């Protein structure tokens, strides 16, 4: 398992595009918001965008990275080949989850550092609640990614499905319209990324994340993971 995880980490390190979108781009985006020094109703843009950017990180790895990897491993009969070894095919998926989760946490710390050091955005005041939401947001998107990977017949279709889902999910997180109408915000809180962005915002401001948001994220994780396990095809 250690060797598999190490191998998956090494392979990710060789994907400059994935690292750009997952690591460099979120930090750069936040920096642009910081430099532009705009504000909405007195709140600096950089402060508004920090939780959205953190939610974006899990979407990149969970929805764009993981499903394509899984579908490609199935398409190229790598999972089938592993099924004939003592390791079995499930562990390589486990290794990918470990690597993805680790990179999401690293990118989150990177975004927090850019916000704090570059633009004086305070670190999360409710740190335990914040950490919980980051982990739940990651598990929810990774579980959704597993489900796409389970259902998509090819790497290409997995990539397309991830991209199609990316837009509505990130819309409700507020990536394009951080100031959402009351109705949109109301609908958004029942979507995983909308709930995540709101809970991240609350915990950064010092409040414990709303139980409903935690429930949405936990529920999304459980339902998607169970469905992925149910529908998974190794070949």
């Amino acid at each position, binding site marked *: 398992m*250690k*060797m*598999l995880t190490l*191998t998956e980490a*090494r*392979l990710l390190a*060789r*994907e400059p595009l994935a690292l750009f979108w997952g690591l460099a781009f979120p930090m750069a985006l936040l920096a642009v918001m910081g430099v532009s020094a705009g504000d909405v109703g007195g709140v600096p843009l950089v402060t508004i965008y920090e939780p959205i950017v953190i939610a974006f990180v899990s979407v990149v790895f969970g929805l764009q990275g993981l499903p394509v990897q899984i579908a490609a*491993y199935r398409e*190229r*009969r*790598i999972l*089938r*080949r592993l*099924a*004939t*070894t*003592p*390791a*079995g095919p499930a562990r390589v998926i486990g290794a990918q989850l470990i690597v993805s989760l680790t990179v999401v946490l690293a990118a989150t710390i990177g975004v927090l550092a850019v916000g704090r050091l570059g633009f004086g955005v305070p670190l999360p005041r409710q740190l335990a609640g914040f950490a919980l939401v980051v982990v739940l947001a990651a598990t929810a998107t990774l579980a959704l990614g597993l489900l796409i990977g389970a259902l998509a017949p090819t790497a290409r279709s997995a990539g397309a499905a991830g991209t199609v889902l990316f837009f509505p999910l990130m819309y409700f997180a507020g990536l394009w319209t951080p100031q959402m109408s009351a109705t949109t915000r109301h609908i958004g809180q029942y979507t995983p990324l909308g709930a995540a962005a709101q809970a991240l915002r609350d915990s950064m401001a010092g409040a414990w994340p709303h139980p409903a948001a935690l429930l949405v994220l936990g529920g999304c994780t459980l339902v998607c993971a169970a469905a992925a396990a149910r529908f998974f095809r190794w070949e």
Partner: protein
Amino acid sequence: MTAIEVEGLTKRYGAKVAVDDVSFAVAEGEIFGLLGRNGAGKSTTVDCLAGLRVPDHGRIRVSGHDPVRDRQRLRHVLGVQLQESQLPDKLTVAEAMRLYASFYRQPEDIEHLLAQLDLTEKRNTRYRKLSGGQKQRLSVALALIGRPRVAILDELTTGLDPVARRDTWQLIDDIRNQGVTIMLITHFMEEAERLCDRVAILHDGRVAALGTPAALGRPTLEDTFVTLTSRAMTSRRTS
């Protein structure tokens, strides 16, 4: 001792019978060929032997293990080279070898195996940059890295140039001389004649012939193969 035992193996996909009451046994240290046209049931037989599919009927033992019930123990003693199975593009030869070696309790020495398969110079080359023959040899190396007692090699010389094919034949001989039982799945009759101690010819999911290439091959194995597996023969048999 018998390395592979197959008795009355039957596997259906819906209404289609892929493998129909197939029986054969492979002795330890033997090179056994499984021949047949596309769709004859070779791959399904291999899948059942490797524990990738559950047979509908029949008894299978590989080194004494039931591929379904003793799957985990089977995986330690059986090395499989699967058709069209690839590796991640950016994984290097040595990394793939180290990864697969980590799956087994007492793996083969990586450098030794790389040298044996003429891959030492390619050890730091990524999978994507390997030639077809090199990929094929790496696939064989990965099938052998766990020091298997039985190796199943599915179409291992398909796509190789004549020189590479001859080299691979030599390699198969060497591996057998180390005491490994080998099951070859091949379309090349010359290869079966040159390497196999015995062959089974599958046709429409059944064993059409079983024996040494010399006994079956009158005048050549290919003639026998074509006679047994051509459509005309099928209609004659069923009428």
